[in-house]
């Protein structure tokens, strides 16, 4: 079976199980909405202030969303040792990671798309004129978040202090992605809007490097 097909089969399974239980998406959306609403009440920002620190708050909320969602990515597979069932299948081990990365990317993107209009209203930021560039930045940043989070979720799931271990492993690695994403978002929301090629290239490179590394070591990551 090809890598793409196996990835697709695993992605479809992930989407089906999540949309059936809705345990992750529901919790995460409520959590990040509360974060964004609380910040808006604390700062009561003007439009120009929002353009300056809004992107940081936005990506902080996305990081919280990622921490919540990514943790359970591989923990779910421990319930009936279904990870062993996946590893027994004659597929490229990276397809297990890739299927989960794709699912996490879509879940995070969904949360972000739900969050954006709320952010725009509460922080008085016009996002419609810059929606295209903003979605590009969100997509590149979210790929980095989902890829690193999924890989470290696989590592942490086999450890004893797994709930503690994932943020400890993840946050230092994610720092460059978060900085680049925030800087790129600041540029997009600035008046006049500017899509920084430097930060975009940085995000794209990070995504490619991390996905390649995951592909190379995927088999070892999933071993007991």
């Amino acid at each position, binding site marked *: *079976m090809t890598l793409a097909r196996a990835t697709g089969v695993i992605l479809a399974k992930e989407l089906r*199980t999540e949309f059936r239980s809705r345990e992750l998406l529901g919790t995460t959306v409520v959590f990040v909405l509360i974060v964004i609403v609380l910040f808006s009440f604390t700062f009561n920002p003007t439009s120009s202030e929002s353009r300056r620190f809004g992107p940081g708050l936005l990506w902080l909320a996305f990081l919280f969303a990622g921490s919540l969602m990514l943790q359970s990515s591989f923990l779910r597979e421990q319930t*009936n*040792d279904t990870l*062993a*069932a996946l590893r027994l*299948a*004659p597929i490229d081990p990276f397809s297990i990671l890739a299927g989960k990365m794709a699912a996490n990317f879509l879940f995070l993107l969904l949360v972000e798309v739900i969050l954006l209009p709320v952010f725009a209203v509460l922080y008085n930021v016009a996002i419609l004129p810059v929606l295209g560039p903003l979605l590009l930045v969100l997509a590149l940043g979210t790929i980095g978040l989902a890829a690193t989070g999924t890989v470290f979720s696989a590592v942490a799931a086999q450890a004893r202090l797994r709930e503690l271990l994932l943020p400890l492993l993840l946050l230092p690695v994610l720092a460059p992605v978060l900085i680049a994403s925030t800087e790129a978002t600041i540029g997009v929301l600035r008046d006049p809007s500017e899509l920084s090629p430097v930060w975009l290239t940085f995000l794209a490179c990070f995504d490619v490097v991390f996905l390649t590394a995951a592909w190379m070591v995927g088999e070892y990551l999933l071993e*007991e």
Partner: protein
Amino acid sequence: MPWSGVAPSNCCAIWSRAEPSRVSTPLASSPNGGAAEGTRAGPHLGLSLQFNEVEKRYGMRLALRGISLEIAAGECVALVGHNGSGKTTLLKIAAQLTRPSRGKITFDSGDNPISLEEVKNRIGMVGHHTLLYEELSAEENLIFFAKLFGLENPAEKARQALQPVGLTGRATDLVRTFSRGMRQRLSIARALLASPGLLLLDEAGTGLDPEGQHWLGATIQRLRDSGCTILMSTHGRNETQGAVTRAIRLDGGKITHDSGAHGNPNEILVMAAVRESGEEGAP
């Protein structure tokens, strides 16, 4: 739900996998193979395996100590021993779920050595856990695994696999609503889905009622007769042991008794049963 029993036609349906990558192998093209026609696979189906000085270490603890073992195609081998004697570790190494710390394991199909990647196509395993997704229905679970194994017409394969385990009526129910016995039956159906040449059973009778145990025993016997190699861990005497052609006792990660390929396994099985009943009866 009553067991539907396993009519030969049902069993054949389970063994009707058409796997394109296997078409060119002597196994699939043999007159007895018949995979493409949807008939029962022939006597050459089984894999043979050799453990060569296999050692497995978990931290400081040695789970397996220099296991050397040759299992021929079509053998049905029972592994007996206390908890922690290394049975599950040996099965996991055979399934390639864990790597040996030292030594190696090789597989052959007929006289042809086959790669570890190819081997995965032909291993079925029933583990300690059910290896099933609770949020998916019985049918969805089987379709998912049929797709991962690259089987043609996964929905039809799933329906066929559910019939002999008596779960056709519960096909669309979520696994989380199943009893332990039903989950175990579904787990067995999952392991047989891709018509394995090597079936690894880790206390597969767990949770099954007497009728289910009887069915499992008959299924193992039928698989063995069709040439499938079976390696199973078991405790005491049960219905599954009727099909056993060889028994191996493990103790502290070492083989202490082996009835051999042509020996009588009953002595080791009875000894294991006596020890088990003695432990159960101990104050």
